[in-house]
């Protein structure tokens, strides 16, 4: 099968590309970033998904399936640019899929879609609307992209569209939202709050995406691995020290004293849990995680010791 992966040079992109290629698939990546030591069986086209060159890839290569993971959560990026990539890019990809007869399209989204708030429930199911968008406007375009991708299910019924809402990923690659938060030796917490954090091993994420292709899954699914752990334990098992800071003081210390930078809206994400229920996905694909929570943290800790 010929699989096109947008954002292939990213952390999960590389693992998925290599894994699909090793199973004999013809893997084609599109990314703005270079990828030098590509594994055999993969090709990469260095371009922006919204550019002409990207559409040419669809036209000339005619992929059977597209995995769209070229969305950004980086909060440092300017708002308009981020929203152009997340929304404009997603729109372009689905248009191309429709125009060039792609049979299957997978949107790789995030579990932060559900939002974190004092009155949000544990174990979100796929039918729930996003919450607390007003407190975290930086995430709004990712939520919009998620819902927009889902609309392909009725707009382009001929495409097997699947939206995956995946929890935080962690592992030896040590990249991504949670890894960035855990980067330093001291990790801030909000004093008096210790929310559950749900994360899975990056290899398990790759496996989940592969299964989505194999099973030609259609619909919206939460994807998670082992049960969540309280943030304090996550930080300790990662070999870091938790630094509980009263909320009013937090703004003054983040980004300083070796602590990570946090968007103002992200504060709720370290006060309240975002925990998803992935039973529907497990049932539809037979997915089982290979790495438990402690092994995942151990690998992260070994690959990325506290600085």
């Amino acid at each position, binding site marked *: 099968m010929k699989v096109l992966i947008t954002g292939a040079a990213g952390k999960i992109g590389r693992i998925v590309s290599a894994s699909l290629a090793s199973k004999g698939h013809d893997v084609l990546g599109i990314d703005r970033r270079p990828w030098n030591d590509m594994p055999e069986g993969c090709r990469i086209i260095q371009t922006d998904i919204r550019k002409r060159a990207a559409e040419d890839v669809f036209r000339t290569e005619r992929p059977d399936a597209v995995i769209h993971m070229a969305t950004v959560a980086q909060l440092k990026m300017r708002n308009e640019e981020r929203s152009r990539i997340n929304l404009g890019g997603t729109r372009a990809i689905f248009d191309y899929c429709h125009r060039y007869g792609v049979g299957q399209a997978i949107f790789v989204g995030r579990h932060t879609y559900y939002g974190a708030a*004092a*009155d949000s*429930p*544990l174990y979100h199911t796929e039918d729930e609307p996003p919450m607390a968008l007003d407190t975290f406007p930086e995430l709004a375009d990712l939520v919009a992209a998620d819902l927009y991708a889902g609309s392909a299910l009725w707009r382009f019924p001929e495409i097997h569209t699947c939206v995956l809402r995946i929890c935080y990923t962690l592992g030896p690659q040590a990249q991504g939202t949670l890894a960035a938060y855990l980067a330093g030796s001291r990790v801030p917490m909000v*004093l008096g*709050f210790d929310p559950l954090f749900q994360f899975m091993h990056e290899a398990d994420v790759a496996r989940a995406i592969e299964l989505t292709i194999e099973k030609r899954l259609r619909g919206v699914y939460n994807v998670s691995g082992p049960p969540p752990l309280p943030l304090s*334990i996550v930080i300790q098992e990662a070999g870091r020290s938790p630094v509980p800071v009263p909320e009013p003081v937090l703004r003054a210390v983040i980004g300083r004293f070796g602590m990570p930078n946090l968007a103002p809206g992200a504060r709720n994400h370290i006060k309240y849990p975002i925990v998803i229920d992935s039973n529907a996905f497990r049932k539809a694909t037979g997915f089982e995680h290979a790495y438990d929570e402690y092994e995942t943290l151990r690998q992260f800790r070994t690959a990325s010791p506290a600085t």
Partner: protein
Amino acid sequence: MDYAIRREVADRLERLEIPFNRDGIDPYGIDRSHVDLFFCMLGWFQKRYFRFSAHGIEHIPARGRAMLVGNHSGGFATDAGMIISSCFFLKEPPRLAQGMAEKFINKLPFASQWTNKAGQFTGLPEHAERLLEDGRLLVVFPEGAKGTAKLFHERHSLVRFGTGFMRLALRTKSPVIPFGFAGAGDALPTVMNLYKLGKLFGLPYIPVTPYIVPVPLPATLRVHYGEPMHFEGTGNEDDLVIHGMVEQVRERIAQLMDDALKSEGTSAR
């Protein structure tokens, strides 16, 4: 803290049927060490401070989903604490009853952390349904915060019952175990509630007692549990039908409250 209580809590915690992992955390984030502390505190209040007795504890099933439904009074949730405590100290094997906490609690530092780690989650329908489906024991006060806000002279009355609990019981096919609680209004005799001051602290209200501070007195508390009530339905019935079922539970609770007020009760010590 009392050594005998600590030892009993440790022993009962061993037999508590909650799937703790190697760090003593369950999939909902319930923390064994917090549960330990929580019951040491509740145990002291139940055994050393209040004169507490429970009747009909055998009506609570040993395993599987069930909803404990009863009257609420006494400023803050003294009654909830003693219900949860009685399920832990008087049931064999012990059970962790999980209350459905008021939403404001989760907004307060420490209160949020401690309640969540002791298994007392925010009262959301999603939480209630998931816990019941998972075979847990739920404590529900259909009167809500209006129940605890009852003044001293209203302490033996019942205010309006919500209907959400009944639809939940029908949808999840959970038995309702009614209970009547007597004495919470004597433990914290409320003369008035300060709503505006409460708002300043992020609380719904602050109860004021004749001795000003809202600290419970060592009162006599009694709870009477009734036989499980089973209702048939889907949870999508007309309001009139649901009201009829809620009324049955309300009447049963009123009887049990009466029993609890009149009886001497069996000692829980």
